[in-house]
């Protein structure tokens, strides 16, 4: 068996908010051409018909205000460029038009094409270059946060494409319930930042199973004390607030929250695992974003296996029903482990249903899965013979001792 898979005991997922692949990691094409980011050929028309090219002018805060629209109809415009005909073809040409709709200001609308320089994001770009970066990790739905995060917890959004509360429809269960009720039992936890930030999975998980939750402080302590569960899902701080220990700046990177605060969070989660010699060899950390937040990306989201649910035409806002048969816009995703070779670039297609699919298969938790989860690719191979060496990302024969260190 590959030693990386043999030693793997913990999977940790840190899901950030609302940034596209090109916006955060697009600059890396200049460093590693295998990374599918920004090139000179890319552009989007503005409302005057002028072509706007992506520019490395993204700022940490203050630029994407108002929050770019990323509800289902706006994302439809971004992907299809405003074409609503039956035989339309996705072209990723509607981002500037969509942002223009919010302020009716041509100059302002062009900012949706801005991306970060590599030097702006020392943590995310370093991790992308040092471990495995995914060229084709897409949001699960061309829509907003809540329904996309649902895919990470359940492998489906139960027919929702919006931000409304959803009901869990049996027999599908969350990945946490599946793990803790399996035989033999596994351990799983959702770590929200604190009670003032809370979780985005309120209506089902927090309301009915609050015992599943811990705080970020507890996550750090669990890392130090070797108490980390087999599967951990970490949520960032979603709002600016004050606690007894001082001011807590939102770290989710949701526009218009400070991107550097999110960089610090990612570095801290990574370093907490990295510096514990009992945890680092047997933990895989996935850092990714829930959806693109209305920000430009150039890769057309592919078709996918339809879910068993359909969003009716009157709920999508486009006048067309949605069968969950197309993925959302591409997001940054990086898999981190000392068993992954530096400069690994993965071209297979993933979405957030890949998270419960991977966790369930790795820990051998039984079905039922949603059709989307069943068809989703896994980013960690199940540790059962035979393991395909071409698919196994934790492929090194010996653990690396040159992994980056951040000063957090």
């Amino acid at each position, binding site marked *: 068996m590959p030693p990386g898979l043999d030693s793997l005991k913990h999977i940790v997922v840190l899901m950030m908010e609302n940034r596209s692949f090109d916006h955060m990691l697009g600059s890396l094409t200049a460093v590693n051409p295998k990374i599918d980011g920004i090139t000179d050929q890319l552009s989007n028309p503005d409302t005057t018909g002028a072509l706007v090219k992506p520019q490395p002018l993204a700022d940490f805060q203050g630029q994407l205000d108002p929050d770019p629209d990323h509800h289902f109809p706006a994302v439809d415009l971004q992907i299809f460029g405003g074409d609503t005909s039956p035989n339309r073809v996705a072209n990723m040409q509607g981002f500037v038009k969509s942002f223009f709709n919010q302020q009716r200001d041509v100059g302002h609308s062009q900012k949706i094409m801005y991306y970060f320089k590599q030097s702006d994001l020392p943590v995310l770009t370093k991790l992308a270059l040092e471990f495995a970066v995914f060229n084709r990790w897409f949001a699960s739905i061309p829509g907003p946060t809540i329904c996309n995060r649902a895919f990470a917890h359940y492998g489906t959004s139960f027919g929702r494409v919006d931000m409304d*509360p959803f009901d869990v429809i049996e027999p599908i269960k969350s990945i946490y319930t599946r793990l803790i009720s399996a035989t033999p039992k596994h351990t799983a936890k959702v770590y929200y930042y604190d*009670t003032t930030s809370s979780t985005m999975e309120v209506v089902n998980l*927090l309301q009915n199973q609050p015992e599943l939750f811990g705080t970020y402080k507890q996550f750090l302590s669990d890392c130090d004390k070797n108490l980390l569960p087999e599967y951990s899902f970490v949520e960032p701080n979603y709002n*600016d607030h004050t606690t007894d220990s001082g*001011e807590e700046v939102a770290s989710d990177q949701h526009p*218009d929250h400070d991107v550097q*605060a999110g960089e*610090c969070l990612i570095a801290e989660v990574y370093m907490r695992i990295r510096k514990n010699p009992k945890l680092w060899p047997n933990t895989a950390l996935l850092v990714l974003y829930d959806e693109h937040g209305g920000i430009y990306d150039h890769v057309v989201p592919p078709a996918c296996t339809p879910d068993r649910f359909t969003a009716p035409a009157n709920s999508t806002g486009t006048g067309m029903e949605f069968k969950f048969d197309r993925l959302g816009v591409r997001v940054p995703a990086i898999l981190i482990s000392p068993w992954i070779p530096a400069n690994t670039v993965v071209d297979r297609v993933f979405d957030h249903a890949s998270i419960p699919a991977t966790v369930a298969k790795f820990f051998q938790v039984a079905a039922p899965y949603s059709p989307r989860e069943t068809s989703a690719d896994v980013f960690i191979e199940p540790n059962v013979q035979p393991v395909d060496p071409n698919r196994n990302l934790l492929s090194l024969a010996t653990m690396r001792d040159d992994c*980056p260190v951040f000063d957090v």
Partner: protein
Amino acid sequence: METIHVPRPSPKKAMNPDRPVNALLLAQISHLQHAESRLPLRYRSEVYIHAIKTEGEAAEYIREVTEAIHQAHADAAKQRAKRAPKRGLEIAAAAEPPKRKSTSKGKTKSSKRAKK
């Protein structure tokens, strides 16, 4: 090994609890209100969520309801635990062999008789 410097944002610049509440926080508030409406009355906040305009106000409501949900579950668990030993005794009592019951009755009777 080289240590990579991670720039920290200045809280003075980045922090703004007066920022208008974004669509994500509005959705989270609405989900929390949905959950709050299912709590027993004594755990509910008296916050009118449609009056929440800033991130700071949102944060306050989010904390209040999240803690209330945890508290309601913790109190229910305490009640369950309180009931558990009692039920244990009841079960134990029910499981007492009839022989012992009659013996004890007999003993009482006999002791009463003895007193007489």
